[in-house]
């Protein structure tokens, strides 16, 4: 190897080493630490009388929003409220008795199945139980 080639190589690798030694901590700094997700098994949604048929409520299940729906026939449903398309929060449409996402007009039925519009996947389902007169949402088994 020529002396010049060797020196060039040494300089370039030295610079590359310095650059990565500087960049690595910066990149790691920019990525926030992963938070351990608090994973509750159940969440209370409130007394049954608060849910008139054709109404809904969004609550936090751990860090995720969950929508609890009482349909027009009086049945309860709980679904992940995060649209599977691009992350908007869905809403219950009483007039059509289905779940609707306003962002790009996505529709799901009350079992969470994506029925029309851009959503690619169904909404995750949760279980609803009445404990006494308290509506309780449980992680689906």
């Amino acid at each position: 190897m020529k002396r010049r080639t060797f020196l060039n190589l040494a300089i370039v690798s030295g610079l590359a080493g310095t650059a990565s030694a500087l960049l690595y901590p910066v990149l790691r700094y920019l990525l926030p630490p992963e938070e351990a997700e608090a994973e509750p098994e159940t969440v209370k949604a409130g007394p049954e009388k608060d849910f008139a048929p054709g109404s809904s409520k969004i609550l936090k299940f751990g860090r995720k929003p969950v929508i609890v729906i009482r349909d027009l026939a009086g049945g309860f449903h709980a679904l992940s409220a995060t649209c599977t398309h691009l992350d908007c929060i869905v809403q219950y449409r009483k007039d059509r008795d289905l779940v609707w996402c306003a962002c790009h007009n996505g529709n799901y039925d009350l079992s969470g199945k994506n029925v029309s519009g851009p959503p690619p996947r169904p909404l995750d389902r949760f279980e609803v139980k009445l404990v006494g007169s308290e509506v309780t949402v449980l992680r689906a088994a």
Partner: protein
Amino acid sequence: MSALKDAALSWLEERLPLRSAMEFASHKRVPVHRGDVFYYAGGVCMFLFLLQVATGILLLMYYRVGSDASYESVRYISAKVPFGWLMRSVHSWGANLMVLFIFIHMFSVYFMKAFRKPRELTWLTGCGLLGLAMALGFSGYLLPWNELAFFATKVGTDILGQVPLVGHWLLRLVRGGDEVTGATLSRFFGLHVAVLPALTALGIGAHLLLVQVQGMAHEHEARRTMPFFPDFLVRDVALWLLVLNLVGVLAVFFPWEVGRKADALGSAPAGIKPEWYFLAQYQFLKLLPGRVGMVPGELLGIVALNGVGVWWLLTPFWDAAVPERRRDAVVRWAGLGAITLLTVMTVWGHLS
């Protein structure tokens, strides 16, 4: 008095080559022709950027960042601070007009074919500046922390999450976590007031330097020219004043609303839409079905949109590859096609 002025001037002259700069400026000429009104569009973009910097600094005096402070501080600026509503409205309208004028400038450069050799780098820096302006618009949009901003940011950043392999990583980098929260707000704030403006200022510097080095396109074909200084500059400044008035009128008669505060447990409101300069992409994403064969629709859409962007960015290079006699026609039709598509999708997105 004039003795004093002379003394001051010669003191300066000994330290700064003022006279040669003036001498240099006096030789710069601008071609005069039918399309020359479009030469002013670029200057207007720069003027609007300066206006954004000025009103942005003023807004910083009261703005506070945080999911429990941002919305409240913007309300305070709009409702309590004397002329606060004006500063905020001018900043919002200025941003929209800046993007609009960048589009006008870009398309006029395109149709005048001023991107051709040796001006490829000017085109590329210009495209970079458009990207920066859109990033400034997107990051600034979140800062009032209202409902619309919250969902616009959720959707916009979720798109990043769709990128294969590094998507999740990118998403966390931009959001400062898995969800759009106060951490996202802090990041966007930093980007909006420090990183992006600094990059934009550098970009404008490079862009102007390139324009200066290469001179105006078609300068030699033009039969008439006018001196840049003072003739062209005076017209420039007169137009800037007009634009300032336009921004003022818009800000006074159509003040920007503060909206409802973002709520992580609120549904996206009916009729939610992005800013007009994202409407075409938005409409396109809305049209795609959930899946196309095996691939998720939105991934396909994002790939297609990026493809179009890259094709536009590379205009000077594919243009050079087209046989000479067909080149002008190809450029014209491609440009008209792009404008038509953009307009149709934007209007459709607005109406639907």
